[in-house]
């Protein structure tokens, strides 16, 4: 007993940690070998314990601290080196920025919110739906059985992601949540996930001509949403802070959801002055609704394709 008490916890931790890592790496090696043989291997998603441990990291606190830090105005002489390091690290293309002079940006938060030259992103006229932002296409396709794929093979529940269907009256008695959303005969439900990397332009625009009728804000975690984590944490987008805008376009139901992440904890919607994201206090699993349809505005907020819609902010 005495010997056990004398043992230092550190070597035990190192031993168990490296044992676990070795086991995990061996499993990944086996998956790679199987893939080389052309055998489709389902992605290794995190188990309950790993998700709980990951969610216990105070990402909201870190995010707000990161945001505070990036609101501190930099001395003029420090701006160029700091922003040049950020540009080099994340591959930012300053030629497209509306203001190329780095001294113009007082702090990294302002630099992160930089706008682009209008001619830098021509809006495609010949297609009815466009990309709302710069980024990487993580996944896209038809929604099946109320499950949406965040990346290939890793799904999340449509109803958990959007929340209960209360933003408009439903006349008929649908067989599933997905059928609730599809309002026209012969239509299907489609989805597209765009991941914005740290160096990307972080404003987003209206992807089509539509009327935004409702906003639902889900406070939540701010786990990283980079593709590697999206492959590892199932239901990742249902854990994270997000703002769901829903309404109608020419073919029926349309929604755009902005999902926050650790370094980009705040979401702004330009026409929604009441929206406050990344607040210190929130009740787990809660959400708050706002309808843009009122007695004197039966239409909601009309958005034209390509119109400025909102932005992600640091912290």
């Amino acid at each position: 007993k005495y010997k056990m008490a004398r043992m230092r916890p550190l070597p035990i931790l190192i031993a168990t940690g490296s044992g676990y890592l070795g086991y995990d790496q061996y499993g990944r090696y086996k998956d790679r070998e199987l893939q080389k043989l052309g055998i489709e291997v389902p992605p290794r998603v995190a188990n309950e314990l790993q998700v709980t441990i990951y969610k216990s990291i105070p990402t909201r606190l870190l995010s707000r601290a990161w945001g505070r830090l990036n609101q501190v105005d930099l001395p003029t002489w420090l701006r160029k080196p700091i922003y040049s390091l950020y540009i080099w690290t994340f591959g930012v293309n300053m030629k497209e920025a509306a203001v190329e002079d780095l001294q113009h940006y007082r702090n990294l938060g302002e630099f992160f919110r930089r706008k682009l030259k209008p001619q830098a992103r021509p809006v495609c006229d010949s297609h009815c739906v466009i990309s709302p932002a710069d980024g990487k296409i993580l996944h896209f396709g038809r929604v099946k059985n109320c499950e949406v794929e965040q990346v290939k093979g890793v799904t999340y529940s449509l109803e958990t992601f959007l929340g209960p269907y209360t933003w408009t009256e439903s006349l008929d008695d649908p067989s599933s949540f997905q059928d609730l959303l599809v309002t026209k005969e012969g239509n299907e439900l489609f989805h597209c996930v765009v991941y914005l990397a740290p160096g990307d332009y972080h404003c987003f625009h209206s992807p089509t001509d539509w009327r935004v009728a409702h906003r639902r804000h889900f406070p939540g975690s701010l786990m990283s949403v980079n593709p590697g984590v999206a492959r590892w944490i199932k239901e990742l987008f249902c854990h994270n802070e997000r703002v769901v805008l829903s309404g109608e376009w020419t073919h029926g139901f349309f929604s755009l959801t902005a999902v926050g992440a650790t370094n980009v904890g705040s979401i702004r919607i330009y026409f929604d002055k009441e929206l406050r994201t990344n607040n210190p206090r929130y009740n787990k699993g809660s959400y708050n609704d706002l309808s843009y349809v009122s007695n004197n505005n039966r239409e909601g907020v009309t958005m034209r394709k390509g119109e400025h819609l909102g932005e992600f902010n640091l912290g």
Partner: protein
Amino acid sequence: STIVLLFEAPRDFKFSLTAGQKIHFGEPLGTM
């Protein structure tokens, strides 16, 4: 950060995308 679009469209809607590709704001996502 991430943006998720969820919308209904006629069955013959086709995405003109490849998973993993870079895309810019304003570029088309698909066609009817």
